[in-house]
Every structure is written in C-alpha cells, then in structure tokens.
C-alpha cells in the first residue's frame, strides 16, 4: 500500500529506483560464482541474463498471485469506492463514477464514531504493549537458563488465533457463567455487566488485546536487547552511570529502531482490528466498540452498500498509511536529533 502512495507522488523516480533494486541481487562480478573464469564481458552478460530469466521464471507464479490477489483487489476496491454500482441479474453494472461515497462516509456520525474508537483503541493498546513488552524483555534478558521456558509460556497468547482468544475471553466475561464475572461478584458483591457497558466493554477489549500482543512486542524488543554490544554498557559503567541512567541514555536509544518496527507493526494491526470486537461484543453495547473494520464489513456485507463499504475501507487504509508515515517521520527526526546530541 505504501508503494502505491509513493508511486503517485514521484512515480518515475520510484520506478527507476525499483529498477535499480531489481538488478540488486546480481551486481557482483560473475567470475568466482560461474565456475571457470569467463573470458571478456560476453559470456558474463549471457549468464547474467540467463540467471535473470531463471529468476523471473521462479518468481512469476508468486508475482501472478500477488498481482491477482493484492494489486487487483486493492485497485478494484478503489474503483468501487468511486463507483455507483448496481447489482443485477448475471452480474453488476457500474452506473457512474462519483465521489459521493466519500462525502457520505466522512460526514456520517457512524464513521466518525468508529474513527474515534479505532484511534483511541490503537493509541492505548500500542502504548501499553510497548511499555509492558519492553519491561518483559528486560526481565527476560536477565533470566539466563530459564529464559527459553518462560519465553515459550509467554508466547502462548500470541500463538493463539485471534478468534479463539476472543472467544476464550468472551467466556470469561460472560454475564451468566463467566469466570471473571463470578470473581468480580465475589469481590464487589454485585454482578458487573462487563461487556454490556461502554466503558467496561472498551476496557475489556484493551485488556484482551494487550494480553494477546504484548508477547510480540516483548520478543521483538528482546531481540533488540541481545544486539546491543556489551562494551557500550562497560563504557557507561566506567563513566559512573547508574542503572536508571544507563537504561535511559544507553539501552533505550539503542533499542529505538527495533521499537519503531514493533510500534509500526502494532499500529497497522490495531487499526484494522476486526475479530476482537466482532466476537466479543459485535460492536456493542450500542455502537461503543464498533471499529472502522467492523463498520466497513457491516456497510458492505450486511447493508450491501458496495460503494460506501469500499469507501470506508479505502479511508481506513489511507489513514493508517498516513499514521505510519507520520510516525516514521517523527521517529526519524527524533533519531537524528538523538544522534546529534
């Protein structure tokens, strides 16, 4: 998706750079790899072309799949979002191309509500997961021999399929026989309606997502921690830095690039959240937990409003791409400043 936005801004530059990249894998001199040393440039060019052909041969099925599954569907969805589509016997007809769907979507209270919920959900969960994941990674790094076991247990929620995790928590939150409801009843003296009230339903959604995805952040950050060279810490120790200073001035700056990757992944996933609210609350109570993805699904598949559904999907994609680009820019500026300081 990022590639298409880049293409629109500077398509010629992008395509030429892509062309350079594609030649990337074989710029090294062909000599040592192609057995007997070739004489002159001729045979080397042939073999390079031959290899390129083999490359294309092997890559073509994947390219074809990507072209049909991804490129085509994204572009088709884009087309539908501008189109006035009428389903009819034997297929469908595009009556006209307009921007009406976007006007209808952007001005609707349902969309604005879903946007606010999705933003809030993304901000809160990504922040919590980053803090908790980093803390977990720091603990894991010091564990030594037990690390493998702890890691395996910690990763279990991440390994679960989203729908299964959501269903599991759905049972725990269930008002009649849910384990958590029972626990709260014992503690508070009354039965709480966890998924039936907006605030607690949103809270529950955050809890499940943090439970499920913190391990992912932890393992990414842990990988980053392992990559920090030991002598940096030795230098910090010689300079007399305490544990806290070392963390803020040494560990954290070193972790920044890998944390950025984790955050980027999480923004992408959290913004498209569908399965969790779909299974846990169906978007309720009221429309409290209706995410953009759920709204798009309902618009398209329940209401059969093809153009508007596609417009919801497209606006969601544009917003999430915008968020990621903004995040990368802010992050890069910060990293540069950090480097200079």
């Amino acid at each position: 998706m990022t590639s298409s936005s880049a293409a629109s801004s500077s398509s010629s530059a992008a395509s030429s750079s892509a062309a350079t990249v594609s030649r990337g894998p074989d710029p090294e001199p062909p000599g040592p790899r192609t057995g007997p040393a070739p004489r002159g440039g001729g045979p080397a060019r042939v073999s390079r072309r031959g290899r390129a052909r083999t490359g294309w041969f092997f890559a073509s099925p994947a390219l074809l799949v990507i072209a049909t599954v991804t490129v085509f569907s994204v572009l088709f969805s884009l087309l539908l979002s501008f189109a006035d589509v009428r389903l009819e016997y034997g297929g469908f007809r595009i009556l006209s191309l307009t921007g009406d769907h976007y006007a209808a979507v952007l001005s609707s209270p349902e969309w604005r509500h879903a946007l606010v919920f999705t933003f809030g959900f993304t901000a809160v969960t990504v922040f919590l997961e980053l803090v908790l994941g980093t803390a977990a990674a720091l603990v894991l790094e010091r564990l030594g021999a037990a690390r493998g076991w702890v890691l395996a247990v910690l990763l279990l929620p991440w390994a679960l399929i989203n729908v299964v995790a959501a269903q599991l928590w759905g049972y725990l939150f269930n008002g009649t026989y849910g384990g958590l409801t029972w626990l709260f009843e014992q503690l508070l003296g009354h039965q709480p309606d966890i998924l039936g009230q907006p605030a607690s339903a949103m809270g529950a959604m955050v809890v499940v997502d943090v439970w499920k995805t913190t391990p992912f952040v932890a393992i990414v950050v842990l990988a980053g921690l392992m990559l920090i060279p030991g002598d940096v810490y030795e230098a910090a120790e010689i300079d007399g830095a305490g544990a806290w200073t070392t963390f803020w001035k040494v560990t954290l700056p070193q972790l920044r690039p890998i944390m950025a990757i984790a955050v980027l992944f999480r923004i992408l996933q959290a913004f498209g959240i569908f399965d969790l609210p779909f299974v846990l609350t169906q978007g309720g109570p009221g429309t409290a937990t209706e995410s953009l993805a759920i709204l798009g699904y309902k618009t398209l598949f329940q209401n059969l409003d093809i153009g508007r559904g596609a417009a919801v999907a497209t606006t969601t994609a544009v917003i999430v791409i915008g968020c990621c680009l903004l995040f990368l820019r802010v992050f890069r500026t910060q990293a540069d400043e950090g480097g200079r300081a």
Partner: protein
Amino acid sequence: MALSRRTLLAGGLAAGAGLTSGCAGKPLDTLLTQAAHVPRTPATLVWWVPEIPSRKGPVVADLIIRAFERRHPNLRVRKSNALSATDANRAAVTTQLAGAAPTPDVYLGDTTWPAQFGANSLALPVQTLLPKDFWADYPAALRRVSEYHGAVYALPFYTDSSFLFYRKDLLAKHGLPVPRTWEELLRTARRIQRAGDAAYGFLWQASVSESLTCNVTEFLADAQAPVLDKAGGVALDGSGAERAFALMRELTETGVTPRTVTTYVEADSQDAFTGGRGVFLRNWSYAWGNAADRSASKVAGRVGVVPRPGFDGDGPRGVSCAGGWSNFVNPNSRQLGAAVAFARFCAGEEAQMILLKNAGVIPALEEVLTRPEARRVGDPTLTRAKELRLVARPVQTPYYPQVSKALYTQANAVTGGRATPAQAVRAARADIRTALEGRAL
C-alpha cells in the same frame, strides 16, 4: 523491475474495467423462461443450507433431499453447509452471489432478506411461476415479508415463532398462575426471586444484534406501536412506543432481568434457563426441544410453554415476531428450472410433513399443523402455533439492516440504563428516518 508500479496500476484498472464490462446483466424474461421448465436431462443442484434443528435422529435436510430425488430421478441435490449465525451467513452468501456465481442454486435464507436481496438482484422473482392461490395455505405475515414491490423473492420453508417458556414447578410451589400480562409477570418473577428459588426472573435477548430487533418488534406490537406506517415512512412515536421501551427498562431496573441481558443472544438466555437460573424465558420455538432434552437441560420435564403475555388492558396477547427461513433461487443458477422445482418442493406438503415429524421447527404450511401427526409429536409449540399473532419486522425496505440497527442500538441503550425511554424513542425515530433515506452507514 520491468513491471513498474505504473504498469501494475494501469493493468489493474484495465482489468477492473474489463471485468466490469464483462459482467453486463441478463434480461429477466430469459431467466424466467428458463425457470419455468424442469429439465428432463440429469442435473445436480447445490443447496446452501444451515443445520435445521432436529428432534434427534436423522439429518432433516438429507431426508428432504432424498424425498425430492425420488420424485425427480434425473435430479441430484448436493448440500453445501451454511453457517449457523444469520449475519455471517448473509455475508458469505452475498459475496458469492454478488460475484455472479452459479452456485448455490438454491439457498436457505432468513425471512428478513427478501426486500434487500430482491432490490439487489440476488434472488429470482418467482411470483409468475407460482399458482394464483399459492399463498392461501401459508401465514399472511410470511407472505408479507417474502414480497417486495409486488414480487416474491422467497419460498416458505419453516417459521420460527417466539413463546414464553416458564418453570411449572416454581409457579406451582408458590401457587401462582401463568402470567397473562407483563405487569403480572413482573410481580410473579419478583416473588419467586425474593424467595430465593431462582436467580433471574425473565430472560430474553438484548445484545446489539438482530435478536434484539425481534424482541423490540414484539414489545412494540404488544403496545400497539408500529415502526413504519403504511407508506413505508417512520411511524415510531408516542406513548405506545415509550411504553414498550419503558418495559424493557423496568425489567432490568427491577432485577427481574439481569443487567447482562444487554449482551445476550438466544443461546445465552437459553443456557441460563436450562441451567435452572430463570423463571421465564422468551425464545424461539426450537428452545422447547432443548429445554425438554434431559441430557442438556436441568429443568427437563418442568417446563411449560405459552404464547407471550401482553400489556395490562385490552391490547394483543400472544404476539410473536415472524421469524424463519425460506428458500431463495440464485438467478445465476445454470439449472433455474430444477432450482425452482426444488424450492417449491421444500414448501410443499411432502417436505413440510418431513419437517413436522423430524425437525424442531414449525412447518410453514399451516395445514399440516392440524394433522393428527402434529399432536403425536408432543411438541406444544406445534399445537399452539395457531394461537399466535405473528408480526413482521419492518423488513419491506432494502435498508432493513440499517433500520434494524437503529432499533436495536437504542433499545440496547434503554435496557442498559444509558437512555430514558423518551430519549431512546426520539433517537430511534431519527435514526430510522436517516436509514430509510439511505443515509445511514
């Protein structure tokens, strides 16, 4: 890459345009001519069918398929297992149909679908293929929901009706009669709850879904408050609508209904009832089979079934939302004649008798309910179905999903105590108007 991004973009758009022009429609007359003739050559149909509730024993769908194949030796029917959740089912089947897929040839769908599916050309209008008096033997409410703009888009298969299930043993212990009004039900439930004999008084469904729309439709009908007027405009307003919403609020406020009802779908309320936690339950007819099943129900043998109560006064009693499932014919089917024949067979006497004897549902053909076999089955929902006053949901608009959402969202807010009945009626009225104008997402 030789394949630049620009090429990909252009290619994708060109392919999109090509696909668009390649999907031009077919004239309806041609389709109906094809549909009027049952082929004599061998053909195989695909029937998209979710699990039909069964009174144990053989799978109901298979029995019907076998009976049809005996009548039409050259035709075969293959089952395609649909999902059990209605909304997920609709998403799956519409995706397939909107892509002009020739299968499934016949699909079993909810009675709320005809207007929407008809308006979007996802179902074949079959009225010209039916005899004039076809609908005489089916409930009038079922006919109303199957038609849109004078065309019939669904053939009746079975109905779901709602009843009030109650604990015979608890009422007997307290010497109380089966309540005939909501006011009486509230008093009875509270008395049994206070005595500590049941955790909950009355269980129903109030989650943000179609389940709640059915419940709201019934409460509104009890209070004689229509949702839409004759012209299809919004009618929801006034003291009747507020009375219905106020009852939903009162049920949770008094603790007769647990507050968690705002997350209940049918299965949740049924589980609480068969687990012995409730005095009364509003549910569809199939719940009788589950409540009477000793292996799944703690209260088997102690359950009674009556039509729903009404409000104090001379308003209607025994109101039930007209639910159920009908067969739709895929207009892209390559065997339209055979598909229509199969859908009609399912609505006919032979298939309806199979449903009566084996399925835990109410056959759509009313006449079979009067047969001695109906009494022999021993299911009170079958014999009492005639006493019900069926009401249709406001489904005669292609925007029904949005109208339904407007209703259930506000009803959920009232039940959860987040809005007063007056506020909720006002908001629902405004939201339904937006929905009917096609402006709601």
